C-alpha cells in the first residue's frame, strides 16, 4: 500500500507525460543524455528535500503565508544546489545554464508541495517525491536519448561513447527547438496509443 505512493509517480502520475508539468527543462535540457542525468539529480534533490521540509513544517506554516513560505524554502534549496554544482561540477553547471535556477518555478515542485506535502505525512511525502523524481528522470532521459542519437549521431556520457554513431550526418534539427517539440509530441501520442497514459 505504501509502495504505491512511490510507484504512482513513475508512470500513472508521470510529471511530464501525464501531468504536463516541468515542460520547460524537458525541452531545453534534453539535447544530451548527460545533461538530462544532471538535471534529474538536481530536480530530485530539490523536490525531495523541499517537500520533506514542507511536510515536516506543515503544522507550523500558517495558511495565509504558505505559498511565500514554500517559495522561500524551494528557492533556498535551488540556490544550494546551484552553488554546489558551480563549485564541484562546473561543466554540468554550464550545460544546465539558466535552467538550474529555473527549477524554482518548475511547477512540479510547487505543485507537489501544495497538493501533497502540505497535507500528508513525512514518510508518504518522501515516497511521493522520490517517485515523481524517478518518473521525471525517466521522461527526460528517454527524450534526450532520442534527440541525442538522432541529432548528434552518438550518445556520449562523461566521455564514454555509450551508443555508437548511427550515421556521420545526423539530423541536426533534432537537437534544435523543432526537434524538441516534435519528439515530445510524438512520444505523447505513442504513449496514449499504448493506453499507458
Amino acid at each position, binding site marked *: 500500500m505504501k509502495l504505491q505512493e512511490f510507484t504512482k509517480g513513475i508512470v500513472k502520475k508521470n510529471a511530464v507525460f501525464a501531468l504536463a508539468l516541468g515542460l*520547460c527543462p524537458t525541452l531545453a535540457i534534453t539535447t544530451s543524455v548527460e545533461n538530462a542525468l544532471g538535471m534529474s539529480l538536481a530536480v530530485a534533490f530539490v523536490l525531495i528535500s523541499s517537500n520533506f521540509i514542507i511536510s515536516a513544517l506543515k503544522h507550523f506554516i500558517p495558511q495565509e503565508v504558505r505559498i*511565500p513560505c514554500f517559495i522561500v524554502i524551494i528557492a533556498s534549496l535551488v540556490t544550494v544546489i546551484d552553488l554546489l554544482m558551480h563549485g564541484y561540477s562546473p561543466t554540468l553547471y554550464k550545460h544546465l545554464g539558466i535552467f538550474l535556477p529555473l527549477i524554482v518555478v518548475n511547477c512540479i515542485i510547487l505543485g507537489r508541495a501544495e497538493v501533497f506535502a502540505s497535507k500528508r505525512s513525512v514518510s508518504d511525502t518522501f515516497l511521493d517525491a522520490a517517485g515523481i523524481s524517478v518518473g521525471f528522470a525517466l521522461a527526460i532521459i528517454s527524450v534526450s536519448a532520442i534527440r541525442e542519437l538522432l541529432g548528434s549521431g552518438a550518445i556520449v556520457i562523461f566521455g564514454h561513447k555509450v551508443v555508437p554513431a548511427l550515421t556521420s550526418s545526423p539530423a541536426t534539427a533534432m537537437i534544435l527547438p523543432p526537434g524538441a517539440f516534435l519528439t515530445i509530441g510524438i512520444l505523447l501520442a505513442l504513449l496514449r496509443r499504448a493506453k499507458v497514459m
Partner: protein
Amino acid sequence: MENLLGIAIGAILINNIVLTKFLGLCPFFGVSTKLKNATAMGFAVTFVMTTSSILTWLIYEYLLIPLHIEYMRIVVFILVIASFVQVMEMFIRASSPKLHRALGIYLPLITTNCAILGVALMNTTVEGYSLIAATVNGVATGAGFLLALLLMAGLRESLELADPPQAFQGLPLAFISAALLALAFQGFSGMIL
C-alpha cells in the same frame, strides 16, 4: 554601447522566448486554446515581465551587488516577482472587477511562468545589461511571448475543426504544431542586424 534595436528584434524573432529559448511553455500550451485568452495572457505577461525586469535589475544593482550577496538572487527575484503579482492582483480586484474576472485565474499562473524569472536572470547575470537594455529586453520578450501565443492559438483554433487520430488529439498535436512554428522561426537565425 548596446544595440537596443538588436536586442528587441532578437527577443521577438531570432531568440523568441518560447520557440527558441523554451521558456514560458506551461502557459503556452495551457492558454493557447482560445485566441481571446491567449491575447489576455500575453499582455498580462508582457506587463509583469517589463515591470519585474526593472524591479529585479534595480535590486540586483543597488542591493545585492553592493552587499556581495549575489547568490541570494534566486530567492530574492522570485519573491519580488511573486509579491508584485500579488499586489497587482489586489489592485486589479479593487479597481476593476471586470478586468479581474477576465484575468483572474491567469495571475497566479504568471508567478510560476519561468519566462519571467528567466528574463530577470538573463538581464542581470547572463547578459549584464544596463537598465535601459533590461527594460527593452523585458518589453520585447513579452512581445515575443505574445506573438508565439497568438500564432499558436490561431493554429489550435483551426485544428479544432480537424479530425486527427485520437492519440494525437489535444496536446500531442499542439506539440507538433509548435515544432512547425519553431522550424519556421529557425529561419530568423541568420538575420544580421
